């Protein structure tokens, strides 16, 4: 590995499509989400810069670590969450069909990385030594074990359909055979994933781990200042990364073509449109649903969604 490779890798991780890009795209998407929600609810909604302002304000606040907290894990948890989300886009194609880091099985790595934010919240919540935090963590754990199964079945449905565990192959399969969303099994897998993502993002109807009217902020109850800001940042990034991941799996990916100006314009507009449509779908689900109870959510994921996801997998095996 030459120095140039290292420099490119660093650039990829820290600037594009890593930290800096995600930082801004995530906050922009979280603004779109908030604004959409506000408009659905007949409110005015925040101005564009609000997510950035919130973040920088939180950075300037004092970090309070409770006496009951286990310090090292308490501080590490938001970092784990942030780094995990930051690494996902390195494996998703954006400028060229071949991303910087591509290998057989990168789909599995992404699935793992996407578990980490929830895991970090769990770790942070239980390390905080707060009763609300520990209840939030146990809820997060129960929810994680329930939504992860249909989610993974859906991912494998896609992999089976495209015949590969490499994301590049998925994108290429779709560019030659049409969107996976348009196939029977792909459509079912998409629906399953869309609902699981609500739980992954912990927004209604599955905002159970940090239900503010029940357990304050759940795992995040004791977090303040920069540590809370990091959690918020990783959540905002997820809001961009998850639609992107979904788009890559079902809608032919987010691919920006630099070969000519007109192609650049068309492809980037199409990509942004795809992402925004997914975001609107997610906001809409969030808007029209109250919070489910944990037992109701478990039944929903374990029973209904797992069965639906399995049916989708069965269809993929048959070849639909």
């Amino acid at each position: 590995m030459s120095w140039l490779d290292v420099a490119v890798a660093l650039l990829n991780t820290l600037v594009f499509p890593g930290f800096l890009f995600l930082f801004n795209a995530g906050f922009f998407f979280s603004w779109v989400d908030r604004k959409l929600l506000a408009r659905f609810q007949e409110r005015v909604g925040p101005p564009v810069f609000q997510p950035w302002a919130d973040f920088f304000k939180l950075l300037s606040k004092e970090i309070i670590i409770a006496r009951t907290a286990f310090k090292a894990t308490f501080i590490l948890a938001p970092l784990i969450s942030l780094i995990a989300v930051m690494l996902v886009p390195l494996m998703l194609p954006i400028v060229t069909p071949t991303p910087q880091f591509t290998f057989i099985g990168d789909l599995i790595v992404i699935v793992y990385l996407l578990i980490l934010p929830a895991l970090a919240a769990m770790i942070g919540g239980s390390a905080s030594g707060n009763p609300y935090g520990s209840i939030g963590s146990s809820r997060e754990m129960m929810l994680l074990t329930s939504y992860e199964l249909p989610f993974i079945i859906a991912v494998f449905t896609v992999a089976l359909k495209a015949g590969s565990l490499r994301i590049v192959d998925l994108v290429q399969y779709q560019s030659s055979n049409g969107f996976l969303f348009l196939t029977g099994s792909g459509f079912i897998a998409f629906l399953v994933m869309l609902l699981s993502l609500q739980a992954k993002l912990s927004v209604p109807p599955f905002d159970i781990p940090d239900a503010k009217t029940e357990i304050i902020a759940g795992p995040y109850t004791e977090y303040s200042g920069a540590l809370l800001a990091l959690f918020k940042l990783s959540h905002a990034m997820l809001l961009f990364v998850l639609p992107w991941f979904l788009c890559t799996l079902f809608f032919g990916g987010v691919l920006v073509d630099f070969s000519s100006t007109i192609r650049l314009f068309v492809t980037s507009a199409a990509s942004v449109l795809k992402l925004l449509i997914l975001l609107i779908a997610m906001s809409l689900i969030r808007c029209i649903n109250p919070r489910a109870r944990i037992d109701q959510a478990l039944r929903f994921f374990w029973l209904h969604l797992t069965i639906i996801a399995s049916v989708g997998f069965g269809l993929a095996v048959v070849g639909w």
Partner: protein
Amino acid sequence: MPEVVLPIGPYHPALTEPEFFQVYVSGEEIVDAKVRIGYNHRGIEWLAQRKTIHQVPFLVERICGICSNAHPMCFCQSVEEAGDIVVPDRARHIRTLIAELERIHSHLLWAGIASHLIGYDTLFMYFWRHREPICELLDLITGNRQHYAINCIGGVRRDIDLEKYGSKILGVLKSLTPAVLRLGDAVVKDRVVKARMEGVGILSTDNARKYCVVGPTARGSGIGIDVRKNEPYAAYRDVGVDVKVFTECDVMARTLVRVHETLESAEIVRRTMDAMPNGPIKAELNGFPTGEGVGKVEAPRGEDIHYVRLNGTDKPERLKIRAPTYMNLGSIVPQLVGYTIADAPLIIGAVDPCMCCTDRIALVDVRKGRKLVLSLGELAQKTRKNRNPIR
């Protein structure tokens, strides 16, 4: 799983006011609960005994920002009973009108908060959106969105010009009724909302009777008590009230009671406007009355009682206020046990607790850092020992 004490309060995002529910949980399940009140004591009864009876209505109005018509109306009724003051017909009708508009805004406010408690913020925003015109209407006819300051002893302070505002009131009510029906449908028909509300927070009719609950909480548990019907005051005898009782005893029943009452209140406002007689709005008063009086009003949360003892001077000798939430609060404990933490805010919210109404007797000893919640007898003893204990 070991038992954990989960504090809900004194300060908690689910509760808009300081109140304290010590909830004992095993995992997610609630095994026991304790209610502590007294975090919101302001010494209103004490203050009332140092103000003239014409000032007290405006003082008791400040007990609560939501039932800010029920309390002064109740106090005025108690004084009127003590002094045998006959309130003119038009004043009685105006009181009814304001009381029912207040009930509409209070129930819509509650419905919004209940939606928020189950995490349904969209519905919360919609409910409050439809509450806004009612507040504006009250602003228009009384001069204030809350704290209408319309009641005075012997009648009301302001006349309502129905020729000027009648069409406006009817217009607001006309758009309100379909909106409430639509939003009520959103509650009743939504599967997730149903799953959160049906069969949750059961308060059996027996238990409801034992805990002496009042208002919508009682009417959701199959007890058809309503002061407006049982002991009509103001103009309720003339305009009539349709009291609807639900026997499901759960949170859903209490919600339906309130949805139905909101619609019924709109009807009562219409009937009151039709029946509005002409004449004076205030009785002539000679001097200050003597004797005891009890005022009873069906506040949005249930039966509100004011007891007053007058001795012929300008100040009441004693004022005792018993707000509806005081009766309902205890019943939360049997409702909570057996359900989960996720249900707790909704169950607590479903009785529509109003702590600023409830908290009457409490004493905080700041120097010793000790908190005392005193009974009336203890407080009396303390008063005898020390001339000025509360300051």
